């Protein structure tokens, strides 16, 4: 292909990638080393608050931002190096807790608490999603041709539901006197509170994520199953291989690139876990890294937000994803190089 044609085809997408991926990333990267402060002054302010009958006025010294001639707040941006990262990671407290050998103390620091949950969430759901997805795919593949269509349709449904809506519905099913909680209470005769302690919330989250993502794995695996070499499979049958041996030695090796692909996507997706935290209102017990960034970004009633810490936290999340992806990516790279020769 001529270079000109090549550039004309690839140019737009490179431009988009620079504009929508590289530039924001760069700006977040820069902001994580900066702090923008508002210049404040202390003035005496008299504020009046209505009571039911009369007003009460109080005069107090308030710290308020200075406004310039155009009525805008004056801000000053300064470089603070790794200060924001330190504020997020709180390494001094972390090492102190490690020194005391106290796991509980480490879990009191928001970042490490969030990292613990994010990692266990990502790594525990991964085998479950692949396993359940493969199981559904094999079942559907072996089902009678006439019912395959409806079965595929029904098993895909969980994947179509928006995560926020999905987690909210699980929340309403299991909270206090939700339908499922009431049913379980009737069976067991005890009072069940799924959202009163961390572990039950986490179990619900794992369950929800697997329910939500397994259909995606299923579709990919089902497509892969259609390409299994029938000759190999038949000769395995003739050699007396059991169902399990055929799966173990023929089907799974054939599907390996797809398994790596699913793992890759799942790791990337799961590390960004956020909807479950919001939907399940689990902030009191369990938080994730993405939620932490969101929490820094959310302005309070007075309009303050921690942009620098949010940027640092976002960068740390990205670094975390890169670490997680190294393993499956190396494998894909090796396979890719292998097949080229």
């Amino acid at each position, binding site marked *: 292909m001529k270079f000109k044609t090549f550039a004309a085809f690839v140019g737009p997408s490179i431009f988009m990638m620079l504009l929508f991926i590289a530039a924001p990333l760069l700006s977040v990267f820069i902001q994580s080393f900066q702090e923008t402060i508002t210049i404040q002054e202390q003035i005496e*302010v008299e504020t009046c608050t209505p009571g039911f009958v009369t007003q009460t006025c109080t005069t107090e010294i308030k710290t308020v931002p200075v406004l310039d001639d155009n009525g805008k707040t004056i801000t000053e941006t300064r470089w603070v190096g790794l200060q924001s990262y330190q504020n997020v990671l709180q390494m001094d407290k972390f090492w102190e807790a490690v020194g005391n050998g106290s796991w509980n103390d480490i879990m009191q620091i928001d970042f490490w608490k969030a990292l613990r949950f994010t990692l266990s969430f990502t790594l525990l759901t991964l085998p479950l999603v692949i396993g359940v997805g493969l199981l559904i795919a094999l079942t559907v593949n072996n089902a009678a041709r006439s019912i395959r269509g409806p079965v595929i349709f029904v098993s895909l449904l969980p994947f179509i539901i928006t995560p926020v809506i999905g987690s909210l519905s699980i929340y309403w099913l299991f909270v206090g006197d939700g339908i499922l909680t009431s049913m379980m209470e009737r069976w067991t005769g005890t009072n069940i509170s799924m959202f009163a302690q961390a572990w039950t919330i986490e179990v619900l989250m794992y369950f929800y994520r697997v329910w939500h993502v397994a259909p995606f794995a299923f579709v990919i695996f089902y497509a892969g199953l259609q390409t299994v070499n029938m000759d190999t499979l038949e000769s395995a049958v003739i050699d007396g291989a059991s169902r399990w041996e055929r799966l173990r030695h023929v089907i799974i090796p054939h599907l390996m690139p797809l398994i790596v692909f699913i793992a890759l996507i799942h790791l990337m997706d799961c590390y960004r876990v956020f909807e479950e935290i919001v939907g399940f209102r689990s902030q009191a017990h369990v938080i994730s890294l993405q939620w932490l960034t969101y929490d820094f970004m959310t302005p309070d009633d007075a309009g303050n937000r921690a942009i620098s810490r949010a940027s640092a936290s976002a960068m740390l999340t990205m670094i975390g994803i890169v670490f997680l992806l190294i393993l499956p990516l190396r494998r894909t790279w090796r396979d890719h190089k292998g097949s080229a020769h």
Partner: protein
Amino acid sequence: MFLKRIALAGAISLLGSAAFAACSFENEVPIKSLSAGFEAWKAVTDAMAECGSFQAELDQEFRTKQPAAFEANPALYQIGGVSNGTITPLLNSGTIRPLDDLVAKYGQNLSPNQLIRVNGQIMAVAMMVNTQHLMYRSDILADLGIETPTSWDEIYAAAEKIKAAGVVDYPLGATMKSGWNIAQEFVNMYPGFGGDFFNDDNTAAVNSEAGLKALATMEKALEYTDPEVLVSDSTYVQQQFQQGKIAMANLWSSRAGAMNDAAESQVVGKVAMAAAPVAMEGGAPATTLWWDGIVIAKNISDEEADAAFRVAMEGLDAETVQGANEAAIWLVQGYEPTEIAAGAIATASANPAPPAYPSTTQMGLMHTALGNELPAFLTGERDAQATLEAIEEAYTISAREANVLE
């Protein structure tokens, strides 16, 4: 053809809803407002809409949208609904205009009590007061021979009796959802024990005797509430009341009207209101006073501001209040306090009176720190002393970033 018919039907239904009858003038300047979405705001914006060319956005996320929307030039909304908690960013960035001239021109019906003055200038017009008050099932307390509790000690004593009698699922309801709600519970309790949030140099002062007492009192509630109290917000507690699951709660007075709404409540006429309980003997009720009201954006033309204020005055007139008397503790003329307002009025007129929620930059930072650090105490992961230290640390980090320290 079909499309045309639908468009026509839409146009006619729009015409039908725009009844100009109740408004004293016909507004021709397009006006938009952004406010919270509870019952009182609905009544007020519905009345404003009667003047025409008016569009209301009722959104519980208004507090995050408002500062940026008002900073735009021209501002995206002309009218903003605020409370003493949420007016801070608007005052700080100077995006709302002083209303003195408009009040002089159109504000004949306003009482001086409604005018929110900051340094002598009128910056907002209040329409209602809000505070927490004690809501309780009068039938249950009467059956068990319990006097109306006036302090938190009495609340827990009453809760013990109710629990023993087993007449409701949980004796107490509490708005302890992690984040803003649980922080507000502490903001109510802590000044009740005589605590100050800040020292003179803006450093945090919650690590104190009063802080420990406030935490102990909050923790005690857990014996009597739903085990899932850390996910329960005001709406959740309101519903627990309406379904007869709880007997007492220190809840927002703006939620009182819902108890007698026969369409959704099973306890109509059974919930009575009393002053918010005191935290300690001789102290103020453990609550904070709030007001809700309107502000006008600065970055709009004077003509728009004029029209916006006139429309707002139509929303805040006696007619609106008479149509929605139970929706709030109105400050507007024509309001007839009913029984459900008794608790809030008793709270607001208590001696010593509870403090108003402070509208300062530091309080916003403190509120966030409280909301993030308190849950670990109530789940039992951290003791009271460590929690107070963690709150101060979290506040210090964000206060440095916001440049309010040193």
